[in-house]
């Protein structure tokens, strides 16, 4: 018997609303966690992109543009960036992916991974260019690239977690 069949329908529905929020909060916390591993603090992979990408492709209503905007503002406030920079990048990124969601949702995992990689690079380079422009200084690019590589490498892990949450949402909303 599958585990979801043992959970009462009420809890399934509650979980389907709570879990996506928990994953989002987890990704934000991971992005600001002080990890004392040499140099990690200075690259901080953009984990939030995995969350945005997955929901934009498979269930845009779970992560609407307003939530991407709110997440961006929270990140800007916590990180100390000019308010609006992250919000701009996250909403734009989500929009591009949603427009292509019908095509992307039918693709194999490897193709998804590749597109995610391109979107991550695009997102982080936009952030880098905007912040460099606003601060009128050349921000070192290497930590940005390393952060992207980490985020791309860890995409399968986030994809797996989000895929399970997605499955739970579908079961919860199919349950009479």
């Amino acid at each position, binding site marked *: 018997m599958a585990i979801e069949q043992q959970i009462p329908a009420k809890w399934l529905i509650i979980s389907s609303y709570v879990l996506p929020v928990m994953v989002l909060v987890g990704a934000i916390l991971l992005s600001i966690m002080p990890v*004392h591993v040499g140099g990690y603090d200075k690259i901080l992979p953009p984990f939030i992109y995995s969350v945005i990408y997955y929901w934009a492709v498979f269930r845009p209503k779970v992560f609407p543009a307003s939530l991407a905007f709110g997440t961006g503002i929270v990140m800007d406030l916590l990180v100390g960036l000019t308010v609006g920079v992250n*919000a701009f990048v996250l*909403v734009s990124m989500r929009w591009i992916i949603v427009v292509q969601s019908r095509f992307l949702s039918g693709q194999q995992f490897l193709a998804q991974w590749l597109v995610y990689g391109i979107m991550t690079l695009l997102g982080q380079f936009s952030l880098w260019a905007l912040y460099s422009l606003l601060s009128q200084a050349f921000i070192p690019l290497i930590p940005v690239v390393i952060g992207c590589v980490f985020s791309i490498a860890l995409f399968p892990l986030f994809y797996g977690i989000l895929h399970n949450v997605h499955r739970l949402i579908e079961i919860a909303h199919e349950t009479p």
Partner: protein
Amino acid sequence: MNHHSRRNTPKTVSWMYEPIMQLAERLSSAFLIAVSLILMVVSQIHPNLLSETRSLAYDAIAPVMATAVKPIYAVSNWVDHVTGISNLVSMNARLAEENAKLYKWYEKALQLEAENRSLRELVNLNDMGRKSFVSARVIADPGGPFVHSVIVWAGTRNGVKEGQSVLTGKGLVGRISETGSKASRVILLTDLNSRVPVVIERSRQRAIVAGDNNDKPKLIYLPDGASVERGDRLVTSGHGGIYIPGIPVAIVDEVVPGNEIRVRPLADLQRLEYVQIVDFGMRMPLADEEKTDPVYSGNGTSPVKAQ
């Protein structure tokens, strides 16, 4: 006829629903992108406009992060402990040698302290304010490649104020840039917006340690023909009124003739766990001075607000 139209109704609704939803999606995204751009321009022109909101965000995240970092610090300390065991013999020999050297310096320091005290009394030198401090735990390291800062779990309710110096046992870490009631943000020495007036201990020449988001900040505004050597120690000069004179800051790491000089902060900025926020009772520079003086001006996000 009626039957036919009734059968087609759901299809018609679906056919209409999808483009409407797509249009709504596009409009909301376009609207939010426009709002983001407006916010960006506004917060660039008035960096302090949203400082209250930032403080609220720090306060909101502080209790969560303070709990979340405990296991991370525990693992990190355990890793240090395990890796430390393998180096125990060599470390012991090094420490014994270092201890012998330090003992000589201790004797010298006592002698100099007594001499310093008597000379201060002789010239009736005004002391640089009272000193009080708060120890605080680092609970978040949110900047990544863009902003070099940390959030500490101490705020206005603990007496923390903007502009106060943040130190570890080894040297200067940075300064408080924003305060909430429970948590505050510390701009690190390496951040793009950090400028620390220093003096080279050996030659007493003044300069500025300027962060540029590299692990090793630059040493700028050094007088022509100044003598700088690799290994020179830099301490705060006290100019500008943010830091008191004599706080150890960095040592010169790279000197490229005719090119830039890079320094290495004495405090280990990558492994900050606890810091000391020190109130030296210094007067903060005026807001206008801050905006125009290259020593204090920051191009970016959150310059220190004058009190």
